[in-house]
């Protein structure tokens, strides 16, 4: 592998990891606090992208689409949590299956509304171009994605570690009943966290729509990668999501070129290893 290729693969891995982090962080947050495996996270991603698409078509502004997509899906998440998930309160199985059912509906309705052609969101001219770093030509947008991932990671960390809400969330992850016993409106916190997770997915969708394009099946693809990330990193851990995303992104890219015949295994083997050796993930809770 030449140095040139090394840098390319490194950038590729980091930026792909950043995108994965956006989706996986929401997933892990929702699980960490609410113990809900949100199998509709991929659908939220796809819907976010499509909403962004419609906004771009209507207004021509990618940034507006980014904001709008994120907010729209956050609202959708709110509605799902309050309207549906809460009704089955605490029933893990029902929650998981509800999200599966919702993903069926979302995928089919998205097909009906936006059609099946793969669509790439067009970027504003400011970030459309290429730049050269370390002698390697690289698209500006991907670097923006990396930056976005870092900002979100830092933001989430700050939220969890340095705000009262964050403390409540962390306490809720540790001991739900206690938090309720302290008189805190746990229900509102749960709704908020779910909406936040959805917001992140929607944001990721608009980003991914420009990076990977939108099409039927993109929801399952991104969900699969998110699952790999959180299995490796550990469900419910922000650190795990960060590390997991980086690992998966880098392994994906370097793996393709170093061991092309085993491309698929290269991504799933670490997951399998983690499952066998440390099922709760690298940073998962061990009780």
């Amino acid at each position: 592998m030449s140095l040139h290729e090394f840098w390319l693969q490194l950038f590729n891995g980091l930026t792909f990891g950043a995108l994965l982090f956006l989706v996986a962080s929401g997933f892990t947050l929702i699980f960490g606090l609410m113990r809900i495996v949100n199998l509709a996270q991929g659908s939220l991603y796809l819907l976010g992208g499509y909403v962004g698409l419609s906004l771009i078509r209507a207004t021509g502004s990618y940034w507006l689409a980014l904001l709008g997509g994120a907010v729209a899906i956050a609202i959708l998440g709110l509605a799902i949590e309050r309207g549906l998930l809460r009704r089955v309160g605490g029933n893990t199985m029902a929650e998981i299956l509800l999200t599966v059912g919702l993903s069926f509906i979302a995928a089919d309705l998205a097909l009906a509304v936006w059609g099946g052609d793969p669509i790439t969101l067009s970027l504003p001219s400011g970030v459309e171009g290429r730049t050269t770093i370390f002698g390697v030509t690289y698209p500006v947008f991907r670097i923006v994605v990396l930056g976005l991932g870092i900002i979100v990671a830092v933001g989430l960390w700050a939220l969890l570690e340095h705000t009262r809400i964050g403390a409540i969330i962390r306490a809720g992850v540790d001991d739900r009943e206690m938090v309720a016993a302290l008189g805190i409106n746990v229900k509102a916190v749960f709704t908020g966290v779910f909406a936040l997770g959805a917001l992140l997915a929607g944001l990721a969708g608009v980003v991914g729509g420009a990076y990977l394009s939108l099409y039927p099946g993109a929801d399952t693809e991104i969900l699969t990668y998110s699952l790999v990330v959180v299995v490796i990193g550990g469900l419910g851990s922000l650190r795990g999501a960060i590390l997991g995303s980086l690992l998966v992104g880098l392994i994906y890219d370097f793996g393709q070129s170093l061991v092309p015949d085993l491309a698929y295994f290269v991504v799933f083997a670490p997951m399998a290893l983690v499952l066998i050796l440390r099922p709760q993930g690298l940073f998962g809770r061990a009780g």
Partner: protein
Amino acid sequence: MRALSSRVRAPAAGRSSAGRTSWFKWLMLFAAVVLALALPYGVSSFWIDIATQALIFGLFALSINIISGYGGMITLGHAGLLGVAGYGVAILTTHSGWPLGAAVAAALLICAVASVFFGALVVRSRGTYFVMITLAEGMVVWGIAQRWGELTGGENGIPGIPKPSFALLDWQYYYFVLAAVAVCTVLIARLVRSPFGLSLKGIREAEDRLAPLGYNVALHKLIAFTISGVFAGVAGVLLAMYNNFIGPSDVFFLASASGLLMLILGGIGTLTGAYVGAAVVTIIENWVSSYFERWQTLLGIVFVLVILFAPDGIVGAWTRHVWVPLLRRLGAGDEAAAAQTATASASGVGLIAAEDRAPSDFRGGVSATEDARSHTTSEPTESDREGARR
């Protein structure tokens, strides 16, 4: 938390009430058998098709029921085990030229081994972690199916899987599947009512209590998982021969989710629910889809509605609203009560799974604080339940 003893008492109560209700149930069973046998004479090949598929997927759903319904452990990767057997028979017959009988036997054996292996990875997990790991396992099988082209044909799958020589026509194959499925169902029914089956239900209801009682919980789970996997394998073999084909889509996560969906729709924790659910989904997928383009949305909505309003599924709802009142009218109060609690326990599956009150625990053993906490929460008071349900 209901005591285990009422579980044990239920079947006994049934057996001792003789007379009209037994006769009535036998009549219903007989009617069902006659209907199933007569089906090909009354309907077109298309509906024989649908019925065959419903039976095969019903068996698949029933296999999931063993660990999810009776055992309370939700799995989202069972299509992987279905696929191991299906691909097994496909590869052995098309690539290696084995005779069909030997290939089927070998495929089921390979499936059993895979089930043991996959089961071993999951037995120490609970609740959502169990789900996640089974999901991952299923995806690993899918990955192998899709990518190991020389062995599995990759995306194209493996065509040309033969049918047994005595079951080449569609109605013949239907009877073949009917017989196979009937035998499997009877075996599963026996299993569920055996002491092993009861301990499985015990694991579902109060896992933390069984270890101190001397049960090797992990071993029980592993055995249950393996048995469940083998029955999924039977469904896989039947499916592969039915379609003369197997491909990665048969083992994808959606196939596993579909099996679970069918089970929930029909009624988790019941024997007949799996078949009822499979029939409904198969009909929507193959018949309704010709008339209604957004049938997948319909399927999703049906599913969501069932989870929200009828988590017992169709059979559960029927039992509660039709069967039990009927039994009462026939004067079998005990029988009715037994059926009622049986259903209620079915919906008790995963409703408030004890393991979800405490933070996740992966080791089979329980730390002291864990122990204390689970003991506190396993004696539920109203406020406790409220808190857990948030």
